[in-house]
């Protein structure tokens, strides 16, 4: 697994992808810094609102889809996938490092951004920082599983992923509460609320039950991991 993880990190850690990731992750931190430096009154729920409306709804899925769809997508486009699948390696040994590469790159950057946000606006205790870190990591892992699979399904994974995030995670999830059980955003918010109910009391009406979020996120991650392995076994490799 090690050589493929190293290869994937090298492929995904290219200059422009890393720059986009860091720039997007820095955005909420920059906004919070400006608000703090301007000396404006910071509302009680400033950090949770920015985290939900900007980080979890937009930045997290965009960063993760940019990386994860390229995991197998680039191998397909460059016609290099055969170098991996024509080796005596179990398919999960190919899929796991491809998914992990996205988590390793995007996870820490987004988690640091979220934690920095709550520290800057001064709402945080350690528990809130931990909650942000866990919530964002779970989101990255779930999106990584979904978009890695998507990159193997279609060469147009990126536009499909954008439509999915905009429609399902953004619009449908907002109108139909039940969709939150099947939504990565729903899982991330519930994780944060579950770990620090006081700091994230803003999410009281949005968050699903903590155990449901754990089970839901696990199903998404394991389910798409399995679907990706199955796809890799059954597909025609170009």
């Amino acid at each position, binding site marked *: 697994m090690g*050589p493929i993880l190293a290869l994937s990190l090298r*492929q995904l850690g290219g200059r422009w992808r890393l720059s986009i990731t860091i720039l997007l992750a820095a955005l909420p931190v920059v906004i919070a810094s400006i608000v703090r430096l301007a000396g404006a009154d910071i509302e009680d729920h400033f950090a949770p609102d920015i985290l939900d409306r900007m980080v979890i709804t937009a930045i997290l899925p965009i960063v993760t889809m940019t990386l994860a769809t390229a995991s197998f997508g680039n191998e397909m486009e460059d016609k290099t996938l*055969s170098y*991996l699948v*024509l*080796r005596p*390696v179990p398919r999960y040994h190919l899929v796991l490092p491809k998914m992990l590469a996205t988590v390793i790159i995007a996870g820490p950057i987004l988690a640091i951004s979220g934690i920095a946000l709550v520290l800057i606006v001064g709402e945080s205790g350690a528990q809130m920082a931990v909650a942000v870190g866990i919530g964002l990591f779970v989101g990255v892992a779930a999106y990584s599983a979904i978009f890695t699979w998507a990159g193997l399904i279609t060469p147009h994974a990126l536009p499909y992923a954008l439509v999915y995030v905009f429609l399902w995670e953004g619009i449908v999830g907002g109108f139909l509460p039940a969709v939150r059980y099947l939504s990565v955003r729903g899982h991330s918010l519930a994780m944060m609320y579950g770990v620090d109910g006081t700091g994230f009391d803003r999410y009281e009406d949005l968050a699903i039950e903590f155990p449901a979020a754990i089970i839901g996120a696990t199903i998404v991650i394991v389910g798409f991991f399995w679907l990706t392995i199955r796809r890799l*076994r059954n597909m025609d490799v170009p």
Partner: protein
Amino acid sequence: MTNSNPIISLDEVSKWYGNVVAVNDVSLEVFQGITGLLGPNGAGKTTVMHMMAGLAAPSSGTVEVLGQSPRGDHTIYSKIGIMSEHEAVYGFYTGRSFVELAAKLYGIDPIEPAVDKAIERVGLVAAQGRKLGTYSRGMRQRMRLAATLVNDPELLILDEPLNGTDPRQRLEFHDLMRSLAAEGKSILISSHILEEVETLADRHLLMVSGKLAAAGDFRAIREELDQQPHRILIECAEPRAMASALVQSEAVDSVSVEEDGSIMVLSRKVSVLQRLVPKAAAERAIRLMRVEPLDESLESVFSYVVER
């Protein structure tokens, strides 16, 4: 020592993509030694090789490689070295790192001696520290071959391995293939250029339009071809005078003057014609510009094989 059991066998295999039939009801066997898979571009060679490699599933029929299906069991790749026709590589890797990656995925331990041997076999020791992105096309092909050989596989499936190589590299490749075959390995090489594998392979499979057109010793196919009239193109200063001189010879089956002024001769006795043409031209003071046999191309062999 030779083995009479087929290393690869395809039984009534077809492959279609939507309405396009890429391979149509092909049955063939590949035995120990060097086998050439020949056919013009678009003949279905790569699709057949993809199915042999397990990269593609047949739409119907069965494929067996080393006695088992190449799909569904990744352990089979410990015995096969496959080089696809795609020349893309991880350009940021050095040649050596690229071969090392393959060695690690094959689970070779220790990897260094195996990597050294593979790179040495393809003659790229001096360039192994350079990034693949800086390699010429021929060098990339050779380093890809090294990554295919690093596991010392018993079966090699090589799709157009000579693409981008120069004549010297081709000779070295031939030597390498012969030495691998002498070690008991089975090798299947595809090419759309007859000369690339004609002298190398013991046995040939000819594919045209998704079908297996012929299989066997290529020399036998060639000899059979020799019983057919050969086409010879002649360009000269006075085509009509030349044509009437040639048509009287028993070596000539027919002569026609084309619209562009060239002469097309059909002949079963080419050696007689070879002497006749310059003699006839000299006697009539006709200047010869070009005399060229047209039946040496792979396509003409294919068309003959298909039409016979």
